[in-house]
């Protein structure tokens, strides 16, 4: 019996030391194969005395069963190990940074312009554009601002010739559009404007968006409703808005709109607006007794600064990638 015990221990240790499925398979053949240990023991039975045969046979069978059990247990274990190792080879640490495909960004000025345009588009305004080099007529005279009008003080104008200038506001587009299209109409126009004023808080060229609505019954209540809706869409529904009387030569009555951001200075001016001046309508051949409406204009840089908390207006034309990437 000692013989079987030793044999069993040998088999067990072989199986337990098998490091791979292949190795285990070899051991299995060694034990269970045609010329294996168990088979050779079996072959001994016929040569044994009859009385020993039964006991020996039982012992060999026992050994066989136990060996089988160990083999299959070991096989399961080795398969698990192998699968685990295969899986580890496939494993990728998802915290490794991916090779980024960096898309560019649309400049914040145009992002804000597009946002404004989209807000007004939803209210039925369509987009028109006009030249940046303008006739004095479209920039001033047609807008009820004759030469030597004190309001021209507010426009430090760049001139190309005596009669051609760089537009100081987007309002000439209103005039050009009204000359071309009959009312009713509702337009917005965004673009570059120029003022000869260059310091830490003024750029010689900046962006404005301008709007115009002409119809038969447009009132100051429509002006208020439209602008309130637009400002809240752009800057947040929680913003407080106030309308303050002001003066522009091309609107009457004229207003400025302030928004409260809850900061130190309570009200910040954000746009100018008003009912289109009858003289402007007359200048483009629209009868002010039949048609009336409102116009408004606002600075894009100002909206962008308020919206994102940018405090240096010179960032916009600097085009630093460090700035452009942020938006």
């Amino acid at each position, binding site marked *: 019996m000692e013989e079987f015990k030793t044999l069993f221990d040998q088999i067990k240790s072989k199986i337990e030391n098998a490091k791979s499925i292949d190795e285990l398979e070899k051991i299995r053949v060694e034990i269970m194969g045609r010329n294996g240990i168990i088979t050779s023991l079996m072959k001994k039975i016929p040569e044994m005395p009859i009385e020993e045969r039964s006991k020996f046979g039982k012992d060999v069978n026992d050994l066989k069963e136990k060996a089988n059990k160990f083999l299959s247990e070991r096989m399961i274990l080795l398969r698990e190990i192998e699968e685990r190792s295969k899986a580890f080879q496939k494993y990728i640490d998802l915290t490794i940074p991916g090779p980024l495909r960096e898309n560019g960004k649309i400049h914040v000025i145009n992002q804000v312009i597009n946002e404004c345009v989209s807000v007004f588009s939803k209210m039925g305004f369509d987009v028109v554009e006009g030249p940046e080099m303008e006739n004095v007529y479209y920039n001033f005279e047609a807008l009820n601002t004759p030469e030597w009008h004190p309001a021209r003080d507010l426009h430090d104008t760049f001139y190309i010739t005596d009669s051609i200038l760089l537009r100081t506001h987007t309002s000439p587009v209103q005039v050009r559009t009204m000359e071309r299209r009959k009312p009713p109409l509702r337009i917005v126009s965004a673009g570059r404007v120029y003022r000869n004023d260059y310091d830490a808080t003024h750029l010689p060229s900046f962006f404005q968006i301008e709007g115009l609505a002409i119809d038969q019954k447009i009132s100051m*209540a429509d002006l208020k409703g439209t602008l309130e809706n637009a400002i809240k869409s752009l800057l947040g529904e929680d913003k407080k808005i106030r309308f303050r009387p002001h003066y522009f030569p091309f609107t009457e009555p004229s207003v400025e709109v302030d928004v409260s951001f809850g900061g130190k200075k309570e009200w910040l001016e954000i746009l100018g607006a008003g009912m289109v001046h009858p003289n402007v309508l007359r200048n483009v051949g629209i009868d002010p007794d039949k048609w009336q409406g409102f116009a408004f204009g606002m600075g894009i840089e100002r909206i962008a600064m308020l919206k994102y908390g940018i405090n240096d207006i010179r960032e916009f034309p600097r085009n630093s990638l460090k700035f452009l990437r942020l938006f």
Partner: protein
Amino acid sequence: MKISIEWLNDYIDTGKDIERLAEDLTLSGSEVEEIERPFERINAVFSAKVVERKAHPNADNLIVCRVDDGNGLHTIITSDKTVSEGDFIAFGSCQKASDVNGHVVEPLEIRGVKTDGMAFSLQELGLEAHSEGIFKFEKPVEVGVDIKKLLDLEQTVFELEITPNRPDCLSHIGIARELSAVRRTKFKIPKPSVDFQQGDFPVLIETDKCLRYVALTIKGVTVKDSPLWLKRRLSSVGLRSINNVTDITNYVMMEFGHPVHAFDLEKVNSRIVVKDAKGGEKFVALNSKEYTLNGGETLITDGENILALGGVMGGKYSGISLQTKDILIEIATFDPVNTRKTSRKINLSTDASYRFERGVDPNDTFDVAKRIAQMVISISGGKIDGIVDVYPTEVKSKKVFISREKLSSYMSFTPNENEVEEIFDYLGIKVSQNGNGWECIVPTFRPDINQDVDLVEEFARIHGLDAIPSVMSMPFVKGESNSWWEFKNKLRTLSTSCGYFENVNYSFSDPKVEELFGDTFKRGPKLLNPVSPEMSLMRSSLIFNLIDSLSYNVKHQENNVKFFEIGKAFEEKEEERISFAATGAVSTFDYTDKRYEDLLIFKGEIESIFKNMHIDFEFSNEDMAGFENGRCGRILLNGKKIGIIGQISEKVNEFFDVDTPIYVAELKIEEIFKNLRPFRYESYSQYPSSFKDLSMFVKKGEIRAAEIFKTARNSSEYVQDVRVVDLYTGKGVPQDSYSITIRVTYNSVKKTLSDQEIDSAFSRLMELLESMKGITLRKVR
């Protein structure tokens, strides 16, 4: 413009609530930009009595005083020898007291005498521009009292933004009128009872630029310092005290908004002639500057000498001096446009010109004259001599009608009629009902009210803009297509998806930079008044500023820059373009992509952007100034040049201080947009395609790649696509050639192509290419 609240209270009770007052003015159109307290930095200055006065033991020009401020005795040193024992002065202790500018009194030691305080002058108290000596009370006062209380320096001043249409609001009375309308309370204008004698001083107006000229002569005045209250009021509103007569003219201007001027009558040679300048005359103004006139300016003369530049500034020669005894006060009204022209041309803007160019009421002249007369007599003494009024054409009140319907349609509600009339009444507009509206007689101090909508504004702003509802009730309007706008936005999106960042650069350019590109671009217009020489041209191309900002970034540790901009260029005409500029790595953050931008990669990126919109360009080489020879050329669409592309020349690289090659392209997008054809869907083939690759050596300059592709495409009706799958130069390729492998896709929409059909088509292609000069076929797969 500054308004003193204390002063305003002379005409209307403003109440105690400063914030509310500011809001009432702001919300009626006179925006309070700042609430100032002009004397607030004066601190810990008290009345004190000089109890001992001694000469400084070691300095001849100094006096040492002991003063009692009710809190003990202090030593001061002064150079003011007029100080005497028993004087009451303004005293502040060292390290405690500060002057109007906030400067704290520092201890002094002068030749062995130490001070522990200082006697203040009116200059240090902000009440006059320059003081000769220390301030002394005229009468005894209690010692130890805060000087701000004693001299009434706890003042509040509003800085108002007055819009250019409201000259009437450039005065305390004007603001009082506004407030009276907002609050519907009365206000009063000072109307002293002064009897004027018709004077006999000759006044002649020889120009239509002077609407009215009133000369008031007063004799026997004493020109001296103004009383404290007058200094205080002028100082509060930012005016310097000069002498009592001049101060009164300034005071009345700030009160009525009507600029007036005082002449020394002795310097006026017996008459006043108002006339146009001929040009070339020289004139020395009160500011001691000499001006040469252009012609057309309004001159106040005495027939010989120029006494003043009408509406702008008086002359030095005829001004008031301490010796002046008799004065002539001019209360005139000048033409707004001419005043503005004069002020612009000689570059001199004054409080007077500011008001005249906005419009001064000629009809308040006698109120103003009476007020001046009353003040001069009581402050400067003297006797009214006479008054002469020349008023060639009376300016009459305008009649403006406003219908109920117009007012309601602007306001979106029907206003209460009593309120309408009440508001107009408070504003000085005489109103009467007439048919379906109101007939309004507009006072001449309101040149801004000319038509019905101007009256709408008056009602709206006084009624309150807050009270107008906020609605969105506009009817639907059919608009026009925004396709051009959308096209540009699509270009933006596509460019960014290729890794390009959008720039918004100035549209000015530097002539030096334009020069680097020779005649590649035609020069744009020049500005008459640029902000700087570097920004004096309108850019003829967007690439200059794009390269400039690329260079800025390279210098700021950004080695890989890919930029684009959409904007106007000003070559022969103003037109919109898109430009690209790139340098460095193709992809900054993709560590699997080690490529650097080169001309073909760059070109491919631009092609991809436009192919997405079904736009296919052709390209052709052409050398251009500013670019590397052989590495630049034109971009064509349907055979027409619509842009350029290339690598920037080394010289330009050096100018911008960039080491890596820069690639740029610029395209005329208005042209491209015009050439857009509506997209039509064509069914793709349901049958499998076959692919054939073909490699060849191509001799540079002998044949253009475009011809290979054209030949391949036209070689069989079954060719669906020809593309490059490999491009190589180097080992194994002749120096004058490059190796290219193309892949031809064969396909039919009708059937699956047989091997025979494909082989025959491909053989034909090979035959065609073999027969072309400069091509050596290599291998076939």
